[in-house]
């Protein structure tokens, strides 16, 4: 599913250049639920941006579904983001003053083959239904709780049936109980649909949901281990 070879990323900050990634090689199989952990500044966000085709590595190769995507033009990258990758953000990133259903429709607006308005609406409503929010389709983000907003964002990320879901601190703005909800939802998506999910987090407990934890430090992988029992580790919290 995902294979990287010696990914590096160097940012030039004036005179100084910062090496955010210093050679990341990893492989992630389809259907894995991977947690990427690390302190801030460890390079996990940079890694996510490259894996999400939002950015290009300074050097190294990135193969997504067997295809080298590290050298694509930004239009081709946009195409891949649209079709193969779903994003879930810490701050939800819903359009304000816009009904939940229109937020969910958003990726469909940028499909190469354009759907009719009613096709878009139908698919968005189905996606909202799958995250248990069909009642709230007409609500604006400001009328939804944090957990509900994140579920709308998850529904949005699933619109084009991506093969990869990237979640950047998906529970960072949520309380514990809601965090459990969201993680359960993501876990279920991984189990039932076989969706490959990469979760970036600095919370250990969230990482426990994954089947595999990759730890980054200073732009290098310091630990990469599977987790045996990935079932409800939060129950006792």
């Amino acid at each position, binding site marked *: 599913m995902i294979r990287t070879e010696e990914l590096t990323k160097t940012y030039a900050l004036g005179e100084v250049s910062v090496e955010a990634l210093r050679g990341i090689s990893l492989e992630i199989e389809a259907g894995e639920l991977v947690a990427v952990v690390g302190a801030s500044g460890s390079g996990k966000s940079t890694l996510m941006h490259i894996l999400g085709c939002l950015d290009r590595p300074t050097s190294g190769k990135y193969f997504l579904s067997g295809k080298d995507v590290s050298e694509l033009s930004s239009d081709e990258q*946009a195409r891949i983001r649209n079709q193969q990758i779903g994003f879930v953000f810490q701050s939800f*990133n819903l359009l304000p003053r*816009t009904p939940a259903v229109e937020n969910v429709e958003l990726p469909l607006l940028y499909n190469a083959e354009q759907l009719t308005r009613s096709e878009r609406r139908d698919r968005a409503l189905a996606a909202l239904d799958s995250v248990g929010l069909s009642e709230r389709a007409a609500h604006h983000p400001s009328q939804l709780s944090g957990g509900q907003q994140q579920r709308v964002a998850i529904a949005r990320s699933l619109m084009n049936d991506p093969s990869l879901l990237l979640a950047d601190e998906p529970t960072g703005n949520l309380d514990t109980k809601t965090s459990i909800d969201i993680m359960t939802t993501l876990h279920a998506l991984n189990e039932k649909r076989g969706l490959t999910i990469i979760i970036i987090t600095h919370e250990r407990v969230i990482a426990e949901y994954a089947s595999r934890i990759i730890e980054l430090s200073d732009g290098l992988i310091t630990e990469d281990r599977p987790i045996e029992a990935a079932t409800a580790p939060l129950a006792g919290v």
Partner: protein
Amino acid sequence: MLDAHAVEIALQSLRRYPLRTALALVGMAIGVAAVLVTVAIGTGAQSAIRNQLRAAGLNIIQVKAGNYRTKGDGGGGVLAPHAFLLWLDGWLAPTAHAHPENDPMEKHDHPTAADRLGDSKAGLGGAATLTQADADAIEALPGVANVAPGVHENIRAYAGERRWFTRLHGTDVDLPLIRRAHGIAHGRFFSQRELRRTEQVAVLGSVVRDKLFGEGADPVGETLTLWNQAFRIVGVTESTNWMTPGTVGDDAFDAVYVPFTTIHRLLNVTNLNTITVTTESAGEVSNIAKAISKLLRVRHAIPDTAPEDFTVTTQASEVLAKGLHPNVARVLIGNLPNLDRATLQELSMTLERAARTMKALLAAIAAVSLVVGGIGITNIMLLSVTERTREIGLRMSVGARARDVGAQFFAEALTLALTGGLLGIVLGVLVSWALESSLGWAMELSLGGIALGFAVATVIGLLSGVFPARRASALDPIQALRYE
């Protein structure tokens, strides 16, 4: 770059910020409406001037019974060497021939001797020299368009308890064709049949109507009493030119019009006071005036040496002499050959030029407001790009290409400008209409003005869209997503 899809996305976004959208639209609409209204005012004033010149009678010749002119004035501009002396002479010691009361250029607030004496010979030249046969003969001249015989009296008009001292014009059905500034406000002008049967029907000037029946009333069907005779009112005539509305004391609208045949019957006379002639082309006025003089001299059997017993004037000379001392006017007119051709043309050109300048000035002012409206849209769009940076980042993360984002912002600006432009056209039409009907301004909405307003709106939309669109599309998705 722009497809229906981008427009759809743009509309969705515009709906999300209704207040901002509305403000931008209003700014644009006011700009376009201002252009439209000012161009309409300019064009309206221009054609009002044109109408007025036409109405002033570039092509009208008046033949009056009697000859009240002083010696030497008849020949048409041959007394140049003596002009000043003559003028001085007339100024210092008006001769008996130049009694001010008899001057046709003067307006009197009391009946003049000629008026008081009515049809009897009024001393100088005799006032009863024109007949219907003269009018028919003039009508037969080549180049003559319309001929309207006229009988004029001062009269007390009664309607119930109210009365008004005014002018009575006995005339022909052709008068409305001659006086283009006369519009029919209510009813109609009297008909050929009524003229033939000498019926007692009357058309009121708007001033008389105002005085006898109240401002703006419709007196059609009411009765007017003249000389203790009942006249049926069939119509009201008013000025079609907003620059010269009817006023008390003017000859055109402070007046009652009846068939001249009816006056002939009631007063038992057959002569005419005036014959009003229009020529087919304004340039022919001088020649036809001369031809009329010649014709009437023959018809009236006047020897070459004797003065005429009638007066032929063109409107040009009257316009020019308006407000001048009669003696000055006389000298002036006598010394300007072909005055009607030269002067009125020059006058019209000057007025046209002035109107064009005014129009350009108004349009320039309006254009400024349009540019301000356009800058408003640019400003709002730029603000919007900054404010919606995260939205742009998000759109990019779900697959929007840079050009999709650019197209969206471009389409938003264009939509604002075009919708604002359309609203502006509607607003401009409404405002023009309101100004015309409430203030009576002459407004002329032209397709050209509308097209201009819309074209400018489009250009502003394009220009004000390009910059924000480029800004939005140049954003880096990661930076945009992180933007706080």
